[in-house]
């Protein structure tokens, strides 16, 4: 049996767009918890800090994002979900503020985007 999760997505979200990206993640994802996909920035390009994610996904997700076509709101969205926030995230993808790539090695892609881990001397 083959997995339905035949694709992967790698995303980098500027810190100021984390909230919008989370609403998009909730829309495109599979559970209410997806509204907390992006938490804190862990990568930087030296000027802007980014929260990142890498995930397996079904082709319907990569297809939607490649055409920037949002599906209807799914049943799992929590009360705080806001479609206008998700739409704002789509606009940020379109403008290039939110970085997205499909079917790539995430670490290679972060480097290609000029992103490096935010220095942390040691775990607290």
């Amino acid at each position: 049996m083959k997995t339905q999760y035949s694709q992967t997505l790698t995303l980098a979200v500027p810190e100021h767009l984390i909230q919008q990206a989370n609403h998009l993640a909730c829309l495109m994802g599979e559970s209410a918890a997806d509204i907390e996909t992006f938490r804190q920035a862990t990568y930087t390009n030296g000027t802007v800090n980014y929260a990142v994610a890498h995930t397996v996904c079904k082709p319907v997700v990569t297809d939607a994002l490649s055409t920037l076509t949002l599906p209807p709101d799914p049943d799992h969205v929590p009360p705080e979900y806001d479609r206008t926030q998700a739409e704002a995230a789509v606009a940020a993808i379109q403008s290039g503020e939110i970085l997205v790539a499909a079917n790539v090695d995430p670490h290679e892609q972060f480097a290609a985007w000029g992103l490096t881990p935010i220095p942390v001397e040691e775990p607290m």
Partner: protein
Amino acid sequence: MRTLLRSPLRSSLRQSLVRPLTSRSSVFDPVSLFSNGEQGAFYLPEPENLFQDAAGTTPVTADGDPVGLMLDKSGNGKHATQGVSASRPVYPGLAYDGVGGSISAPVPASGLFDLMVAIRPAVDETNFIIATGADVSRYVFAADGSSSTGVSNNSGSPVYVVNGVSVPRSRRALRAAVTNGEWALVEIQDINVDLWGGEMTLSGYDTAGWRFHGDIGDVVFRETMTEDERTNVRKALAAKYGITL
């Protein structure tokens, strides 16, 4: 319009090398460690114990399926879950991409516990942490190339054993004890979970560079074991994962 970068479809999945040499231990079953109601959990990341979603409605059936629920086989009901789709490790085993994967389980509010886990760091893995409590300021097995002795925090004074050999409490020693691309049996003995907030997260450190990148296999988390019990688990997991003790 910024378009998605597309490369030829390339599976990000690990292939058959992730699977251990034998599907089950033929000598000792870690489930027996809980036969008298001992606290803890035993995780065996094989399809019959795995679900794609945290609610447990969709079983894992194929390589590449995300893991949202991993059942505890000890009988204590300490099932491990990950509700966020993008943070789920991937079957086979638990495969972590070093970006943001983690899975969490409830643990008792107090006590001393042993954690025995088979891990295989990715070939390009650098530094990592294996497990944290509910707060990332509670962690064990911090491994990197530095000389720091800060290998754990808010976890008592655990003792570290890798592949049956005691390892000094330094990040460099822990890092050197495991080889990228090879299975290793990590034992963290006498973890004090009093400050762990009732939760254990496997590879849950939310800072770039400390996330685990690689595969996690069987996990035994049990109130401090006897030396005989540790030996039994050690031998069973070593045989299963082809580890030389």
